[in-house]
């Protein structure tokens, strides 16, 4: 098998999800030739994310930076527990990059000239996206076999935001899961590589479910990326008839979810 060169895109140097995906890809024999990290303290990013998340952004900051995003379910199934169980000992992505002798680039957002030059120089076979903003067409054009992303909803039915909550509210609990897909110009509209259904267990809340889902997502993303690179998975175009886009759920509707678990 020829050496597979991968660039990892991460929303933060502390992202445990990015770290897990990177480590798993490394263990599968891929070469992480570069890691691009978006800066946390960046006014433009703040404005962009505030437009996207509105008041929920403050909750995110509180949870991720102040509470350090620890698993809340007694550390048995979340990403922190997974990291411990699999001996991933790095605190930050830079530590991981040093270990595997990979270059790290910090950026304000992914669609800058610096990022473009970095990717052209590295000539990756594929880019793995683990969060951190939108990606524009020029970057998609130089991404080799594409940019792979793992969306936390089932595509093409559940595009957009809060796609863990929406199926529950609509009474379709069986439609919970995630999708690994290639990114394109639209939001969650790219060709599908793998769909994994992961139903909620009885009485499980969405917070618990998201924690449980994260390590499974990281494993599936790494696994699917390698299989796609080896030609074992063929991307499948999405049905264009599904035009529904979901947006952030209002807190009053979220309260109604408690009756549906």
């Amino acid at each position: 098998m020829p050496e597979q060169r991968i660039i990892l895109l991460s929303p933060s140097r502390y992202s445990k999800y990015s770290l897990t995906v990177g480590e798993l890809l490394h263990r599968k024999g891929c070469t992480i030739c570069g890691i691009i990290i978006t800066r946390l303290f960046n006014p433009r990013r703040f404005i962009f994310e505030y437009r996207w998340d509105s008041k929920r952004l403050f909750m995110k900051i509180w949870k991720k930076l102040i509470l350090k995003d620890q698993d809340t379910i007694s550390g048995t199934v979340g990403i922190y527990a997974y990291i411990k169980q699999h001996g991933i000992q790095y605190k930050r992505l830079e530590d991981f990059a040093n270990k595997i002798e990979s270059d790290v680039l910090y950026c304000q957002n992914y669609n800058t000239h610096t990022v473009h030059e970095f990717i052209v120089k590295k000539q990756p076979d594929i880019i793995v996206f683990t969060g951190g903003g939108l990606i524009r067409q020029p970057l998609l054009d130089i991404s080799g076999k594409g940019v792979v992303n793992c969306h936390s909803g089932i595509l093409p039915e559940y595009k957009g935001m809060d796609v863990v909550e929406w199926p529950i509210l609509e009474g379709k609990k069986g439609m919970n899961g995630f999708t690994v897909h290639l990114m394109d110009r639209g939001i969650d509209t790219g060709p599908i590589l793998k769909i994994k259904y992961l139903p909620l267990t009885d009485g499980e809340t969405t917070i618990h479910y998201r924690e449980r889902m994260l390590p499974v997502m990281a494993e599936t993303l790494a696994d699917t990326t390698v299989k796609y690179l080896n030609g074992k998975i063929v991307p499948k175009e999405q049905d264009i008839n599904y035009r529904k886009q979901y947006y952030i759920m209002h807190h009053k509707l979220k309260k109604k979810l408690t009756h549906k678990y």
Partner: protein
Amino acid sequence: MSLELLKTFLVANRKELIKLPLAPFGGLGIVLGSDYELGFDIHLPANEIPEVKFRSINADLIIYLRYLVQTNNKGEDVDTWAETLLRYAEIRKVLPKRLIYPGCASYKCAAQLLVAFFLEYYAARSDLRFLNITLKMNDVSNNKRKMRLHIDENVANLFIARNALLETYFMERI
């Protein structure tokens, strides 16, 4: 605000409300009973639904779309417009209201005209995304808390009461 209070208010001010050009009682039959379902005594545009374009959005269009939804029109055009308006309302936030404002009594009123359409579309199609946007739009303008229940207040407040009634009714039934 309780459902009963809103009902009483709307029924008491019915004579004033039906004079409004925005068909405030259209779609309210579901809550108030068929006696109060006065339908659309308004001038509907003669043309067909315009092509889905941002510039085509105006008060007449929204009223016409409401009429089509309430008369159980299953046309694809209505669904496409509903999806487009939802996207504009979610992402561009204030722009659709700004566009339909010239046909309405006030800017607040323009917002409530959109809310009315989304609520009626939700009633017809049971698509929860449309109830979601009405909750958000009412949060943004913070209308309900500022509202004073007096008939001399502007048209928007009456319309807000009407939408609040429907919204509360639907929220209780999820």
